[in-house]
């Protein structure tokens, strides 16, 4: 969806600042991996609850499904305001059998693409259409010291073609420096071995300038990001506060780059690489999805079994989009017709009602005229004033 950057008139720019940059992040990870705390730390407010609502406390762990819930919040950065949507996925990895979880999450990602696809094909587009495509998926890994689990591998492989997947270690405050290095190495080795196409801060040594190359190489080396999250705050004598986790043996500072990679990830996600993530989502991942989907429906529509993807000519694709548009039109017409019918029905009902009321009034008047005593006058019960 076009960003308001193209507007140059002053009032529009004001509007841009007020509205903010739109960015959607999905967080995926089993409970206990640090997902919820991270989101609250990133947004600097208590956006997500660890607990489910009181009604659900009874069934808190008879989770039979992944819940997907999107929450919107405003983040005020130095130069920009970000309208951040966080998509949480509680229930993932917590069930006895987790086979169904992947399809549900993948389905959500693809549904957002579908909505954009159909919106693009509309003859009359909705100016207030909200683009809910997920620009980054943060996947939370438990630092077991044994690399990735089967669940981790499967999930990242399934989601990576549809979103920028960034692996993170959610709870890194337990790890000694050696253990942290070991875990990062084992995880990256597994990612390479299973050929998982994560978002690895791509750069081109020839094309990009030195600064960009170094910045991206640095971030790539940090993968998976070792995070510590906390809503606990420590106040100093001069009134300044920092976010910490306190243990009997010491204190971890969340925003300290020597203690964890939280600040590095935050600035990459919300400042330096936000545009890149969005661009890749739109120009690459979305386009791939679009091509796959349209060629799939052409394949299933045609009777010839040997129509391969390469041999589809553009006119077929165009026909396909025309067909989609026609479908849309028809559906909208039907809706309008339904509305018309409903309105007419209501009108006639109201007319009936009015007539009935008139009748009552007339009979009342008649009775008055024939001189009924005041005490015998009975008020019509539901007479509206």
């Amino acid at each position, binding site marked *: 969806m076009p960003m308001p950057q193209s507007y140059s008139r002053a009032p529009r720019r004001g509007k841009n600042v007020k509205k903010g940059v739109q960015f959607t992040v999905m967080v995926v990870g*089993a*409970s*206990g991996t*640090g997902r*919820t*705390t991270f989101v609250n730390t990133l947004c600097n407010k208590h956006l997500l*609850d*660890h*607990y489910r609502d009181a009604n659900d406390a009874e069934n*808190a*762990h*008879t*989770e039979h499904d992944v819940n997907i819930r999107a929450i919107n919040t405003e983040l005020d950065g130095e130069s920009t305001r970000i309208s951040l949507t966080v998509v949480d996925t509680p229930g993932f990895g*917590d*069930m*006895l*059998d*987790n*086979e169904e979880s992947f399809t549900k999450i993948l389905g959500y990602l693809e549904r957002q693409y579908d909505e954009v696809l159909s919106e693009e094909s509309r003859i009359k587009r909705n100016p207030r259409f909200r683009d809910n495509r997920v620009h980054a998926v943060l996947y939370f890994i*438990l*630092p*077991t*010291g*044994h*690399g990735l*689990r*089967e*669940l981790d*591998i*499967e999930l990242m492989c399934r989601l990576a073609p549809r979103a920028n997947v960034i692996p993170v270690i959610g*709870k890194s*405050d*337990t*790890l*000694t*420096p050696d253990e942290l290095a070991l875990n990062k190495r*084992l995880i990256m*080795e*597994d990612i*390479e*071995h*299973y050929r998982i196409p994560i978002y690895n801060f791509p750069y081109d040594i020839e094309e990009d300038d030195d600064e960009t190359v170094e910045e991206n190489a640095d971030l790539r080396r940090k993968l998976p990001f070792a995070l510590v999250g906390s809503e*606990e705050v420590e106040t100093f004598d001069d009134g300044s506060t920092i976010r910490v*986790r*306190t*243990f*009997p*043996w*010491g*204190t*971890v500072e969340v925003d300290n780059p*020597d*203690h964890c990679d939280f600040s590095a990830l935050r600035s990459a996600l919300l400042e330096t690489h936000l545009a890149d993530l969005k661009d890749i989502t739109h120009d690459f991942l979305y386009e791939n999805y679009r091509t796959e989907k349209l060629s799939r429906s052409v394949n299933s529509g045609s009777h010839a079994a040997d129509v391969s993807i390469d041999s589809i000519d553009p006119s077929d694709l165009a026909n396909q989009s025309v067909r989609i548009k026609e479908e849309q039109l028809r559906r909208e017409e039907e809706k309008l017709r339904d509305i018309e019918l409903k309105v007419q029905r209501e009108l006639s009902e109201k007319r009936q009602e009015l007539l009935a009321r008139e009748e009552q009034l007339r009979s009342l008047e008649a009775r008055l005229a024939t001189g009924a005593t005041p005490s015998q006058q009975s008020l019509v019960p539901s007479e509206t004033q």
Partner: protein
Amino acid sequence: MASVAPLSPRPAGSFSIENEQAPSVPLGGYVGFQTITDQIQKRMLQRGFEFNIMVVGQSGLGKSTFINTLFNASLLSSTGRTLPTTPIPQTTSISTTTHTLTEGPVRLHLSITDTPGFADTINNDRCWDPIVKYIKDQHSAFLRKELTAQRESRIRDTRIHCCLYFVKPRGGRGLSELDVMVLKKLADVVNVVPVIAKSDSLTLEERAEVKELIRSDFQKYGINLYPYSAPFMTDDDSAINHQIHSLIPFCVIGASSSFPHPSHPQKLIRGRRTRWGVIDVEDERHCEFVYLRNFLMVTHLYDLIDTTREVHYEGFRAKQLLALKESSAGGNAGQGQQQQPGRPSSRQALGGY
């Protein structure tokens, strides 16, 4: 003058031998049999003790490190993957290692049963089956040896005396669906002690919260954890039991290396050196390791072995022999194969796990 003791059962001790036909008589002087406890001790020290412990939990929860920390020796090496080319196990397997540990005059034959692959796949339904089968198989093997006409004088005891179940702490939640299923199945056949290892990832408040949630889940799902309450227990025993139940699940930390204490360099401690502080495993303010160690080793080691015999094994034995009696009475001619249950009929009776 001999005084007749009252015939009502005494509250002291659940295992004392009561005999209404033998009233207690006071002694006139020295007899000398009170040294039998020393004689028993001497005999037992000669024989040595057998202790079989099992660890159950997802890979990466700190099981091997904890065992090594508990016994202060390098006994288990982790069974998790270290190379990307190692395939991910698709089933739970059982692997037992045995060591002889000597502390003072006591020799302990320790068997540790590890369960690699437990709950490591995407679909973990029935991942506990191999574990329950293994536990029952040990009871079954012991029973078979017991029932042989020419049996060994000292049957090697491979029955699991204690099962440590490692729980993964989940923020704001108690037990997972898998935890509940497995704990219920295990608590039926073995003494289960739940443990949260790697608890240095939790602040003290988080630990208290997680314990509270997990404990209420134990109650809610009727999971019967060791130590069990017996009908005739002393007040002291009840108090200790109560204290232990208020600590379960134990929040511990494992440490494989020892190093000098930062403030007292002459003292060596076992712990972890993180970037923001030094964790001492044996410091009660840091974790509950000493409580768990005292519980397992100092106060309840013998009780674990005894309870396995008296409660779990007896229950298993009773069920098996009843089933055998029924099948041999109803099935082929009652040859009364009680002494050595023939393979086919025992398979029939013992198969229904």
